[in-house]
């Protein structure tokens, strides 16, 4: 979302609020609709509870919530963009609010929470999802997906064209495919599996990395872990230039007959080889984590 657009949203929200747009005062149930273009933008901010978003084939946003006393929902905006947030009388101790949101299926969605799980299903536009200590689950194939958690899990089931997913202690997983994916953790495991992948990058400090999928012939695949294990499973018929290095860890090649060589100074291992005359560029680096290359056939 561009800065200009974000600013436009602020104006729209301000005007809506100035002129008495929706403000639900301490009510048990909240329901409101707003017109929104099929490719419009919608922002959601909810500190605690959950946010469940579904894409639908209508140019309308529908929000439903059950509100605790002292919690209010503010919504406003125009046809091209709108936003909403939950406000609490007690900012320090907000009550959980569980939001159910329906948005146009091609909309651009931005959701930010503190301690609330985010689930998004069937939104094909762009997704920006941020959570401190909750989980993020995305089902579907958005054009762009950026998902960031601090200590929660990020799970993606589908084939986002462009994906960036990060967590620290939580796990990050992609089950599906992507043309451009980058996944990162500190200690959580990273799992990538399913269909076909092109540019793919997985980075972790101490987490394990598991990849199981098809390498696009022109793809670039980079897997880095300092101390976690890296397990790469690809079909035997894959065409790839493989470069694996572990400073002090081991390398097990179960894909071909090629044996790893000892690294410099007699420590660690390296494995460089062309599989089926080369093609995709596959690079794995670890400091001390063991690396396994195997067949998925």
């Amino acid at each position: 979302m561009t800065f200009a657009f974000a600013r436009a949203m602020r104006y729209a929200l301000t005007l809506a609020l100035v002129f008495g747009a929706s403000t639900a005062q301490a009510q048990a149930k909240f329901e409101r609709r707003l017109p929104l273009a099929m490719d419009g933008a919608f922002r959601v901010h909810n500190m605690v509870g959950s946010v469940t978003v579904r894409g639908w084939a209508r140019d309308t946003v529908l929000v439903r919530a059950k509100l605790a006393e002292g919690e209010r929902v503010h919504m406003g905006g125009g046809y091209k963009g709108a936003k909403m947030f939950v406000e609490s009388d007690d900012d320090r101790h907000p009550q959980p609010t569980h939001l159910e949101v329906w948005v146009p299926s091609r909309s651009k969605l931005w959701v930010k929470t503190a301690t609330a799980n985010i689930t998004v299903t069937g939104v094909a536009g762009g997704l920006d999802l941020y959570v401190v200590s909750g989980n993020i689950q995305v089902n579907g194939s958005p054009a762009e997906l950026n998902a960031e958690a601090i200590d929660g899990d990020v799970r993606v089931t589908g084939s986002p064209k462009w994906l960036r997913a990060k967590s620290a202690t939580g796990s990050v997983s992609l089950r599906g495919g992507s043309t451009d994916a980058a996944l990162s953790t500190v200690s959580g495991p990273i799992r990538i599996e399913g269909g076909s992948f092109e540019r793919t990058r997985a980075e972790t400090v101490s987490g394990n990395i598991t990849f199981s999928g098809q390498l696009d012939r022109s793809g670039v695949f980079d897997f880095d872990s300092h101390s976690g294990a890296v397990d790469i499973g690809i079909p035997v018929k894959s065409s790839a230039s493989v470069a694996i290095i572990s400073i002090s860890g081991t390398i097990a090649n179960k894909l071909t007959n090629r044996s790893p060589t000892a690294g410099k100074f007699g420590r660690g291992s390296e494995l460089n080889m062309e599989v089926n005359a080369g093609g995709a560029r596959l690079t794995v680096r670890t400091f001390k984590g063991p690396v396994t290359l195997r067949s998925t056939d």
Partner: protein
Amino acid sequence: MTHEVVRHLLDDYVAGDLTEDARVPVLDHIGVCAICRSEVDDLEKLAVQVAALPRAVEPPVQAWAEIRSVIERDARVERTVSRRSSSRLRAQPYALAAAGLLVALVSSGGTALYLRERAAPSVAVAPPAAATADPAGAATLAAFTIEENNYLREAATLADVLEKQQGVLAPETVAQLKKSLRIIDDAILEARNALARDPGNRTLVEMLSANYRHKVDLLRRTTEMTRSS
């Protein structure tokens, strides 16, 4: 207009980008809200500081000479530490960690000195054999030393910001965050130690950079998330 709404509009208010319809209620609110008034003051000061920044900064003339002296001093210390303790340290992992820490501290301290534009050590240092024999290694380490210092400085700045915002985070999240930072710091120490033994190893440099990137990224993300949550 509530405090929460106004808070989202303060930057536009300071930038003079609000329409009259929005500006008036924001102004009214600032008149009665000390928190928002303080934030407006901070934003205005920041805008003045940003406007006063130079468009570009030239590196000091003596930069390369000072970097070289720091590298040579680092290499000498690393060799000394390695020589004196190679046999003993194998049986003492804590001592090994301490040696790595020493190397990292000497290196960081040296680069910090450089950045503050202090004079290089007055004692002439003979080029170490390793550096002479492996100029590529020295160049790799030299380039990384600058990069490392940038990471250290950025991480320290973000850690300071986060320290102030820590009250916003749940205790469990703070514990997880500290755990993650410890994991990264351990990895940095381990890779830094290995780089001291093999200063020309570009793979190690890239791994070490990646670890620093993880640290800065985690601190930045946490800071950004807590700032407006």
